[in-house]
């Protein structure tokens, strides 16, 4: 991998009431790389991402971003990172540009107005600038959330199912835009999704997590080639069904 390591997760473990949600998870993310975290519901991918974001404290193991420990240097790390999730919203009664201005201030973005306008144009939603956030469609909301996530020119971007509930056309536009900013700005991205097409199209490397453990790791093509499956989607469906049968 060409870029330097911006995120290093070592032997990460999280237990909730004695039950392991994440077990011995280790990986590295390089600058300019898109790494997919895959797994069925409850596999531990969102818990892992939440630990990297400092929202959940690990039971054991370590997280280092930009060479700094999380949570010890939480604020310094988060200043250089950002996050977009299908499960986090922006206040619905504020206008789009008001929401983005607020987060521009929180992230200390210089020349906020120009940055906001250029991101709105990049995501083809310049016309939504003065619209009430709560009146946007889910596709429009997702793109506004992505604007928020790109405001501070993050070096590390964490995306939790960013294309969930989007129609194929908008999902494709979002993927294309993410690829574009990743190429132009060299952002390292950690990406979770249930949409295997998303993952195959956008990720340089994937980690398949099952019951909190790493099941497979490599490029999407490598992971499929090493399994007995035809595609990531087939692998995913079989795992999901096996999980449901065992529950």
């Amino acid at each position, binding site marked *: 991998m060409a870029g330097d390591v911006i995120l290093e997760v070592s032997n990460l473990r999280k237990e909730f009431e004695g039950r392991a949600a994440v077990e011995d998870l280790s990986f590295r993310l390089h600058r300019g790389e898109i790494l997919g975290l895959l797994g069925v519901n409850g596999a531990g991918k969102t818990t892992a991402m939440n630990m990297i974001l400092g929202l959940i404290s690990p039971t054991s193991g370590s997280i280092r971003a930009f060479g700094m420990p999380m949570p010890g240097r939480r604020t310094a790390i988060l200043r250089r990172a950002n996050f977009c999730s299908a499960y*986090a*919203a922006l206040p619905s009664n504020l206008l789009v540009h008001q929401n983005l201005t*607020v987060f521009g*201030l*929180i992230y*200390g973005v210089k020349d906020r107005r120009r940055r906001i306008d250029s991101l709105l144009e990049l995501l083809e939603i310049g016309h939504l600038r003065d619209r009430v956030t709560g009146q946007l469609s889910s596709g429009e909301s997702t793109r506004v959330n992505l604007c928020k996530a790109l405001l501070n020119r993050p070096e590390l971007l964490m995306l939790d199912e960013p294309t969930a509930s989007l129609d194929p056309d908008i999902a494709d536009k979002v993927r294309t835009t993410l690829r574009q900013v990743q190429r132009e700005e060299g952002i390292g991205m950690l990406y979770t999704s249930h949409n295997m097409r998303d993952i195959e199209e956008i990720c340089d490397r994937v980690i398949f997590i099952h019951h909190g453990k790493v099941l497979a790791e490599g490029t999407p093509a490598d992971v499929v080639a090493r399994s007995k499956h035809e595609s990531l989607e087939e692998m995913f469906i079989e795992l999901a069904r096996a999980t449901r049968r065992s529950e």
Partner: protein
Amino acid sequence: MNTVIPGLVLRYVLLYTRNAVRLIELIFWPAVDLMVWGFLTMYLQQNTSGQFPQFITFLIGAMIFWDVLFRAQQGLAISFLEDVWTRNLLNVFVAPVRPVDYIAATAIVGLLRVAVTVLVLMLLAWGAYAFRLWDFQVLLIPFFANLLVFGWSLGMVSVSLILRWGQAAESLAWAVPFLIQPVSAVFYPVSVLPPWLQPVAMALPSTHVFEGMRAVLAGNPLPHGELLAACGLNVVYLAAASVLFAITLQSARERGLLVKIATH
């Protein structure tokens, strides 16, 4: 320059100014309280042959002072709940916002809420009952400040309770100040309380504030003893509330409760 706190304050101000219901709520309930207490005291005065000439002054003063405490507490508690209700808590907690930034921003919002409410109440009390709070302003300002600080401490306790028990504890955001109201001697002197309850009352900064307020409104000199007691107790309560908030936040991170509340 740190723009985190201005960013958070702007967010809460926009949330209020873009929602007419929230703005009305800031004024409506205090105005209703003022009317009820004002007319009640007028009635008492008319039927007690002028035995209690300072009823209006004491009760309306107490009502306005109580609102300082309540609004300051609400500034913290409701601002936190706003983030929960708008599913924005996750975005705030994954941003470079330190707990102290968050508390400072919500405390400033509390101060703004207090300023709006007190200004409206002062004008209403002047118009309806010829009660001029500003006649006492220099002497009352230290007591105002103490109530504000105690309100912030209670706000931190309320947020800690919500962090610990989630939205099930939402009603506590409103209830916490009222738990201490009976023993804070808001509308009556501490001497009215049963002897066994008086030490409890004296352990609260709010009690000393209301005792001091009555002394000032009665035309007595500034009661330095009450003021010092309120300041000293406030330091203790603010420190204890900060420690409680820090411990609860850490515990919420360990138990995954922060994410649970944020994505509920």
